[in-house]
């Protein structure tokens, strides 16, 4: 039988160490909503989302109360809209109209974000894909809760450099379209390589076409729990360190698995995956950078950071995999800058640069995430950053992503405030040398040799 010490340990994790379930995300397929008439398509989309997700928020709140575990976000991901609107949309404005319908549906069912305003163009763009991508600035500046993502490359297909070029321009236009909110639109726009179909985390969540009609995916969290656990093994060797991370990750993931199963049962929707990610928040003690410091760095970004992060990421997976029946999504350590107080401090102290962050993305689960850069950064440079990340993802057969925010009207040293879970960020310098001629070439970077496995 459960004893008082185990109960106290769990409750201490929840109350003092910021253990929570970060998100229950309902994936909804919109493939059966497709119609060539735009108005009928919009109605179908609105009706399907609001009927499938009607009880999502209430169910999340009930589970949270009965088990005494905070469930921070309830969200929805949908089939990439470029596919859904292909037959009905004739202009970019038509696509942006669908974004507003998604926004309305999200508000109707009270979820805080809806993801899937997306296009999958890792090998090439259809006219519909391109139209959707060009509509992103309007879509994100005229909605509150819609998140957008574009997959521009994969290990199997290589990198679509035309899409990379276009995305550099779109990121900058989105920043301009939302300049009165410190370019907040870019915080809801992710450019991927090897995007997973079942990621529950925003802004990159979408419901892949290989998925079923409706599915529940859960993202756990818990950097704080890992950090506190590591405090007790400060002088110990790597074996003890790894063992402690694994044991903690197991416990954290078990809670996610429980919540996922319970939500799936109550909503009568199949359980998809648990995403094992360590997702930080701006709250003190809920930071991945602080874990790296606890492992032995003066500041995140110091030499040794990549090794420490590689170790952390691997041990989180090893502990988490055993705790869940199905693991997926991004699953690893997130290293967003604005959403992690330790990262913000490291940037401010001059310990962490864009280049070091890029190195870190080789060994963790995502990419350059929530990084504010000067608003004067050229589109080709943003494309260059995207191409570098996509190359890392392509060659290492992992997901990488870029979510940078060129803050219009602000420069290096200034700070930008996004609010809430998105946090705040000091604007980081970007290498000023041009890559314009590279980006102008057009075409595709072919898939690497080790992708030919058949």
């Amino acid at each position, binding site marked *: *039988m*459960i*004893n*008082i010490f*185990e*109960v*106290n*340990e*769990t*409750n201490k994790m929840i109350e003092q160490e910021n253990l929570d379930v970060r998100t229950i995300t309902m994936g909804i397929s919109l493939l059966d909503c497709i119609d060539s008439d735009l108005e009928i398509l919009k109605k179908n989309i609105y009706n399907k989302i609001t009927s499938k997700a009607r009880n999502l928020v209430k169910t999340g709140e*009930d589970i949270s*109360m*009965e*088990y*005494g*575990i905070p469930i921070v976000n309830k969200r929805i991901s949908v089939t990439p809209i470029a596919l859904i609107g292909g037959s009905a949309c004739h202009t970019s404005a038509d696509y942006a109209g669908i974004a507003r319908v998604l926004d309305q549906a999200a508000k109707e069912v009270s979820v805080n974000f809806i993801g899937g305003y997306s296009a999958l163009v890792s090998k090439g763009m259809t006219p519909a894909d391109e139209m959707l991508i060009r509509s992103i600035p309007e879509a994100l500046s005229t909605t509150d809760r819609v998140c957008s993502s574009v997959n521009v490359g994969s290990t199997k297909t290589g990198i679509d450099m035309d899409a990379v070029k276009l995305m550099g321009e779109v990121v900058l236009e989105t920043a301009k379209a939302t300049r009165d909110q410190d370019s907040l639109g870019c915080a809801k726009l992710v450019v991927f390589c090897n995007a997973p179909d079942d990621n529950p985390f925003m802004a990159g969540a979408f419901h892949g076409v290989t998925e079923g009609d409706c599915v529940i995916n859960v993202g756990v969290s818990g950097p704080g729990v890992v950090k506190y656990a590591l405090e007790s093994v400060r002088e110990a060797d790597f074996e003890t360190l790894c063992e402690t991370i694994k044991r903690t990750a197991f*416990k954290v993931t*078990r*809670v996610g*698995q*429980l919540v996922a199963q319970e939500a799936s049962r109550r909503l009568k929707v199949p359980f998809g995956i648990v995403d094992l990610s360590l997702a930080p928040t701006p709250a003190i003690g809920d930071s991945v950078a602080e874990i790296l410091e606890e492992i032995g760095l003066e500041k995140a970004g110091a030499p040794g950071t990549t090794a420490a992060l590689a170790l952390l990421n691997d041990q989180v997976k090893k502990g988490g995999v055993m705790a869940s029946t199905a693991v997926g999504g991004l699953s690893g350590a997130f290293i967003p800058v604005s959403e992690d107080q330790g990262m913000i401090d490291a940037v401010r102290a001059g310990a962490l640069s864009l280049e070091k962050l890029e190195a870190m993305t080789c060994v963790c689960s995502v990419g350059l995430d929530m990084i504010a850069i000067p608003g004067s950064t050229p589109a080709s440079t943003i494309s260059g950053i995207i191409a570098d990340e996509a190359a890392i993802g392509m060659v290492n057969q992992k997901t990488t992503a870029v979510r940078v925010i060129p803050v219009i009207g602000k420069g290096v040293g200034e700070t930008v405030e996004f609010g809430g879970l998105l946090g705040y960020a000091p604007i980081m310098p970007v290498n000023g040398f041009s890559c314009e001629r590279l980006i102008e070439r057009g075409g595709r970077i072919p898939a690497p040799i080790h992708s030919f496995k058949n």
Partner: protein
Amino acid sequence: MKKTIITVVGNDTVGIIAKVCTYLAENNVNILDISQTIVQGYFNMMMIADTSASDKDQGTLVRELTALGEEIGVVIRCQHEDIFNKMHRI
């Protein structure tokens, strides 16, 4: 059987257990096990209880026990046992 873990944490005063047990008895919640320690001067009690005979659902019990805790000046938590079983048992 629907097992619930009820924890009470706070400054030790007269009648904490009595008040919590009275509430549980009135609501037909059967106490299966009680353990108690003092951690760093704080009163720390855990009960394992069976709520299947109660007319009130888990949500209502959670709300009312939280309110009772505020009245006594302690923190009362009422959680489904599965969260602890999942985390601490393979």
